């Protein structure tokens, strides 16, 4: 059976039609669980709770949503809610001292690039942890604005790279297929695959150059 258009689902939810709930779950439960477990490496139990929260938020805020450009607006809105919920989860895990486990723990590969690069990256993670804990202890209920200077270093270093390099690193970290990145950047898929590792190496080199104080002696 064809999936109902998003406009129809939104109309049903706004009118309080319970069929809208079924359509929403059929459209998004598996999809969001898939993202949470395969891309963000969450445990299934945590992913299920997050997905449930996301869809409840969709219902709670449905009156604030508006279609602007097209039917896909609804999907992008849900993905934004999903991202915010994941962010909140990661911050909670950070406060509990479980960030490293949440990020994949020992399953993470070493970058294997310049000497000291992994230590530097780990130190950025520790800085992020400290920032989140500081934010929590200052009682900041408005957690929507991140004060993360450590992650700003990552963002600034990416911004100093060429557009295709920046897009490649950002998108591959989120497991966007090479074909999609190729379509966006205009670079061939094979080129992107071959250069991915080199672009990462360049990223580390730029990070060292921009932030020499971060190098572990």
């Amino acid at each position, binding site marked *: 059976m064809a999936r109902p258009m998003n406009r129809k689902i939104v109309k049903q939810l706004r009118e309080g039609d319970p069929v809208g709930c079924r359509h929403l779950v059929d459209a998004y439960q598996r*999809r969001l669980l898939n993202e949470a477990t395969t891309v963000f490496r969450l445990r299934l139990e945590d992913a299920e709770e997050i997905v449930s929260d996301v869809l409840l938020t969709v219902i709670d805020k449905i009156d604030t949503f508006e279609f602007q450009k097209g039917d896909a607006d609804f999907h992008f809105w849900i993905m934004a809610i999903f991202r915010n919920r994941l962010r909140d989860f990661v911050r909670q895990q950070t406060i509990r001292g479980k960030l490293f486990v949440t990020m994949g723990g020992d399953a993470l590969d070493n970058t294997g690039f310049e000497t000291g690069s992994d230590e530097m990256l780990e130190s950025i993670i520790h800085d992020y942890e400290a920032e989140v804990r500081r934010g929590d202890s200052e009682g900041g209920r408005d957690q929507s604005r991140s004060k993360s200077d450590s992650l700003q270093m990552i963002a600034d270093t990416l911004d100093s790279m060429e557009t295709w390099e920046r*897009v490649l690193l950002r998108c591959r970290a989120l497991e966007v297929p090479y074909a999609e990145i190729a379509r966006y950047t205009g670079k061939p898929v094979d080129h992107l695959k071959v250069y991915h590792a080199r672009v990462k190496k360049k990223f580390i080199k730029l990070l060292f150059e921009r932030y020499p104080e971060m190098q572990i002696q």
Partner: protein
Amino acid sequence: MKRDLIDSLIQLAYLEGKITTHGLYEQVGGERDLFITVDSSRRQQLIERLEEAVRNRTASRQDHTLTIGMFLRKKRKEQAILPRDISSRIGLSPNTYRMLEHDRISPLKISTDSWLRLKHLFHLSTDSLVQLIRRTHQVVWFRPSFSETLARYDARKTARQKPEEMRNAAEELYARAHLKVPPDELRKLESLIATIQDSES
């Protein structure tokens, strides 16, 4: 896909809103092959939770538009009680109660004591009572101008003109509904509400 610390940090930066993927990730998030299965009981549990949320949302939205009169009529019907059963318990004369039930009397003309008795009688929260009072005040305040508007449109009785006239009437009513209550009147309303809230604290 193998992941290293760079990927993890970029993911964190994305979640914290420091970087974007120009919509590429969000787009793909809707179109990827799905490796996960969901058992039917989990699916059903989630549907039930969402349906309950939709029901609660609908109920609270309806309550938000209720006036005191609508609320009292609804309760009397649900509980099969007579007007005098309520009026005597909240300290209102039968005539005043009748006007209250038809939203024909300003909430400012009802004493705080009667409001509190009504609140306890129907186990209302202070917030719910305040919402009912505000909504009723608005309706009663603007009723004379609504009546005048409706009377003007109703006078045009030809079948051809009626639908368009009623549409025009509705537009004028919506425009009037956005008119603000004068400051003096608003002060009196806020004073009544503050007295009710202070009595309960």
